[in-house]
């Protein structure tokens, strides 16, 4: 998503994994959400799917409140596991990360 902004051609391409992952190794998204759970005090055993829903709702902050539920419902299938593809408002470093 970042690098297509510096590419000499405009392309969009998705490549599935070439090899099947060892199930014991967590996906990156799982590890990231688990870390988020730990640093926000939810703990290492927090419900990853619930946390991810919360994060996704956070991305919808700009929408009027009454639209958020509609978007979340609309995203239902996309939000189901595996969650490697998510709604992102932007790849930009947004001011919302400012402490």
């Amino acid at each position, binding site marked *: 998503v970042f690098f297509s902004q510096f590419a000499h051609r405009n392309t969009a391409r998705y490549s599935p994994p070439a090899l099947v992952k060892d199930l014991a190794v967590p996906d*990156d998204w799982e590890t990231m959400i688990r870390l988020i759970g730990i640093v926000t005090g939810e703990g290492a055993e927090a419900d990853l799917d619930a946390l991810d829903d919360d994060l996704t709702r956070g991305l919808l902050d700009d929408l009027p409140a009454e639209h958020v539920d509609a978007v979340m419902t609309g995203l239902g299938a996309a939000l189901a596991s595996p969650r490697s593809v998510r709604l992102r408002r932007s790849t930009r470093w947004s001011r919302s990360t400012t402490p």
Partner: protein
Amino acid sequence: VIGNPTVHRTGLVLYVLDLAAALGSPNVFSSASLDQMPKHLAVGEMFGDFYSMPVPDIERCDLLVIIGANPIASNASMWSVPDFRGKAEAMRARGGRIITIDPRLTETSRAADRHHHIRPGTDALMLAAIAHVLFDEGLVDLGRLAPHIDGVAKTEDAVHGFTPERVANRCGIAAADIRSLARDLAAAPRAAVYGRLGTCLQEHATTTSWLIDVLNTITGNLDEPGGAMFAKSAAFAGNTIGRDGTGEGVATGAYRSRVSGAPEVMNQFPLACLAEEIETPGDGQIRGLIMLASNAALSAPDGPRLERALDQLDVLVCLDIYLNETTRHADVIIPGPSPLEESH
């Protein structure tokens, strides 16, 4: 600390901002400050988005000037161009010319029409002199973008006095060669100037990065076929979001690092500030660190000092598939899938 592979892995890049926000700490660092941050800042100020970065349209270009970059070895950087060598050969076969400017004779220089050895750190002087010649000799042509470009007169003032004769000795490039570069850029129907790592890792890197796109702009090659063009990402890019002519622009320096007072850029501090933030006691001292696919102990300035600092932390968590100079100091190493087990 955000290592470079983070932006190459879907699962990391989509959540890294969430993790930074969850931590609520100003102490975010990434490999960008060892790589391309000056370019982000320059294009952010010029075009309003840190990622709106013009890249050479090599397949239609007549003159390509490559500064501080070795794309034959790298396949280009901040310019994704697979098989650069093949494209460069094709460009020259149809009569296009490639000029490299670098302190070092690189693989790319050897495949170019002309190479200029430049004294390290003097790129801004040379580029200012090229711009000066373009203004001085009436060679500036803004092309169709003229109504959209601000600050041309201020730029002319800024580079006034940087004559090729004045900078030649400092740059180690003859004044006549600097003049020729300016005239060639102006004369070429389609030309592009591209700078990379070497132009970003020097004292005046942001000015250098800015001047590169100043040259693309005042020669009428910005956003033109065969010139320096903006890629359009399939989604989520600054130049594909919202209505034309709208955008937030960029801001920096909203807060500063505790020890050196370095301003944040893109909500990050320079990686060179990490060791001192761990070492220096006081309120806000870094006591715990999460490193995502980062081998900063190898890539950051003064790695041995950073290694000693990492050992002073209360906790170091590394997400990595390698045991390396950095992760060997970790309390916990979290493995991830190999790149072949990831979607892309």
